[in-house]
């Protein structure tokens, strides 16, 4: 059949066009613009138009002890949250992976933290954490334990935030792992039983290796998200006390919307962009190894 007319001949370009425009406009442009601004000294407080300054913003940021501290904090928050979530999520999935009544209801309850609004979660947890009138210190005092400063003390703020993240996101890992468990065939288990493997051996030599790609997928998704965590930290502490819970994202937010130093803020964000990118590539490489 001879194709006729402009539209028929170019359908393969025309149909993806809206999606392509969407991606260019809403994803590529902001990243490109941020990159461009990061090479300028744009600061609204100066009242001057922006000027190209090369890598000056990057050098200034790298010399800022506050940035190095925020970088470390971003990683410690991410890794502690991810490790706890992966372990707890897998255990939870194994417990839930059997037939029982109300399985649907339990899964629904697990979904609830996932669909809650982060700011609402932040407010509620802040009420729990309040050192004077909060619920958690009340419970501690009932049990005769010393009270904690939770998010209001520099030493406990990161673990307290990790706890909220764990509360919210462990169910997601559990649900993904649960799906992975459903996909494991029963044959390896049958043959291992014939060979006389006990429960511990079955878990470590069959279940875990076969689940690993699934767990890693869940971990990658979570890690990329956790590196960029903003809403919960902003709603709960705003980076405080002092800078004690300031991650890179919070710092970039402050530099742009409180200090109006857009050049520096963009440089911080470009750093974060590359960190997340490198991290994702790294995990993908590791995951490839497991799949072989």
């Amino acid at each position, binding site marked *: 059949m001879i194709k006729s007319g402009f539209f028929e001949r170019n359908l393969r370009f025309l149909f993806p066009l809206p999606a392509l425009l969407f991606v260019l406009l809403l994803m590529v442009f902001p990243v490109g613009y941020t990159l461009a601004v990061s090479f300028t000294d744009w600061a609204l*407080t100066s009242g001057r138009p922006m000027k190209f300054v090369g890598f000056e913003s990057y050098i200034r940021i790298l010399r800022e002890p506050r940035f190095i501290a925020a970088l470390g904090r971003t990683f410690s928050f991410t890794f502690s949250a991810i490790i706890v979530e992966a372990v707890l999520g897998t255990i939870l999935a194994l417990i839930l992976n059997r037939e029982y009544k109300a399985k649907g209801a339990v899964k629904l309850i697990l979904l609830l933290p996932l669909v809650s609004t982060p700011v609402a979660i932040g407010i509620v947890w802040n009420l729990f954490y309040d050192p004077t*009138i909060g619920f958690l210190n009340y419970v501690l005092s009932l049990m005769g334990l010393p*009270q904690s400063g939770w998010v*209001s003390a520099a030493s406990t703020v990161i673990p307290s935030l990790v706890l909220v993240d764990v509360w919210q996101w462990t169910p997601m890992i559990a649900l993904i792992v649960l799906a992975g468990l459903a996909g494991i065939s029963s044959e390896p288990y049958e043959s291992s039983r014939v060979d006389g493997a006990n429960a511990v051996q079955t878990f470590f030599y069959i279940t875990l290796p076969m689940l690993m790609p699934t767990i890693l997928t869940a971990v990658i998704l979570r890690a990329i998200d956790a590196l960029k965590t903003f809403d919960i930290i902003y709603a709960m502490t705003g980076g405080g006390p002092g800078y004690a819970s300031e991650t890179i994202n919070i710092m970039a937010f402050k530099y742009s919307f409180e200090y109006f130093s857009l050049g520096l803020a963009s440089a911080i964000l470009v750093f974060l962009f590359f960190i997340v990118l490198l991290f994702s590539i790294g995990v993908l490489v590791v995951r490839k190894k497991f799949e072989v």
Partner: protein
Amino acid sequence: MKRVLVLLLLISMSAALFAGGTSEKGEEIRVLLANHPYGELLKNAIPEFEAETGIKVNVESLQESQLTQKLTTEFATNSSTVDVFMTRPLQEGLLFIKNGWYKSLDSYDFSDYPSNSVDVGTADGKTYIVPLVTEWQVMYYRKDLFAAAGIAVPKTLAELEAAAAKLHSADVAAFGSRGKGAAAVTQISSYIYNFGGNYLENNVAVFDSPEALEGIRYYGRMLAKYGPQGVASMSWENLMPVFQAGKLAMWTDASVFYGQVVDPAKSQVSAENVGVAQLPAGPKGDSPFIVVSWGMGMSSKTKNPDAAQKFLEWATSKELAIQGMLSNITMARNSAWRDATVQARMNPGLIATQAHAAANGYPYDRPFMSAVGQARDLIGEVIIESINTAGESAKLPALAAEKVKAVNDLLKADGEYGGK
């Protein structure tokens, strides 16, 4: 046929791009208000304005820092459709004036305002901000606890410390004030002034002077010894519930919170047990801050200057100012304070502390500069260090000197350093 279908599909998909592009030109303005008692009052009164003038007002209410962010983003990207907005002169006034985002208010009658409140929004002979709300620092205290302990309201900071020592218990913290770094900068300011210090002098940072450091140490010591738990991360929104729950005996903060402190729906402490006193005098001064916390401005990019002007005149009118005063909002207009109904109904503590602050106070509660946001974080580091060490920190002078240099660098970078 197929060709027509494809064409129709493309048209219908692209139609959304043009949605909202056309609308008839009625008189319509966009107004941004703060989540502030006066913003609420305006929002409720706007239907009256619309009925009277036929101008449609699209209102958005935002929390104060979000308001600044939204305005800045819209103005900086040249995409703003805002006509009139509430604004914080000390926080963003200089920045907005510098960038030419306010329209100058040449025809507005400023004769009913204290001149120093108008000066804050004036540059090069042009005024850009109508003062709306003033606030000054006061001390809220629990009359019943004072009576039970048999002590009088402290008149000096030394007496305040003695009173706190007597009132403090495991159940009720004696003294609270903001401890959260940047947020504390405004509330510690009066303490620094009363010890003889300041943030800036002739646009040079001086908060590492011995006097200022003494004030910072006093504040840190008081909060560490007599403050509620976790005070170093508390701003007013954390302290108010503690006071309302009856777990705080004295609280120094802005006068604007009086209405909420005694609101029976929110507070477990009854209104007759809450006193309002002036901030105790220090060894070298008695100058609580008294500032224009909120003003109203008009966007220089407004497409409806006439409607915007009408709205501005109405929203800052004497009648609404009186209504504000009757809801315990302390307005900037002189005539609102002289109104007979207001004088009869207003809390006498508020009237007395206002008179004292108006006569002796200092019109800034933070370093007045464009980069105030960053400067507040820098000063906040010094405050937190002082609280964490109960004012004892040996490295406080060095830390303050380091931050003074950083603030001076900001002033220099923005071309505001030195001189007046």
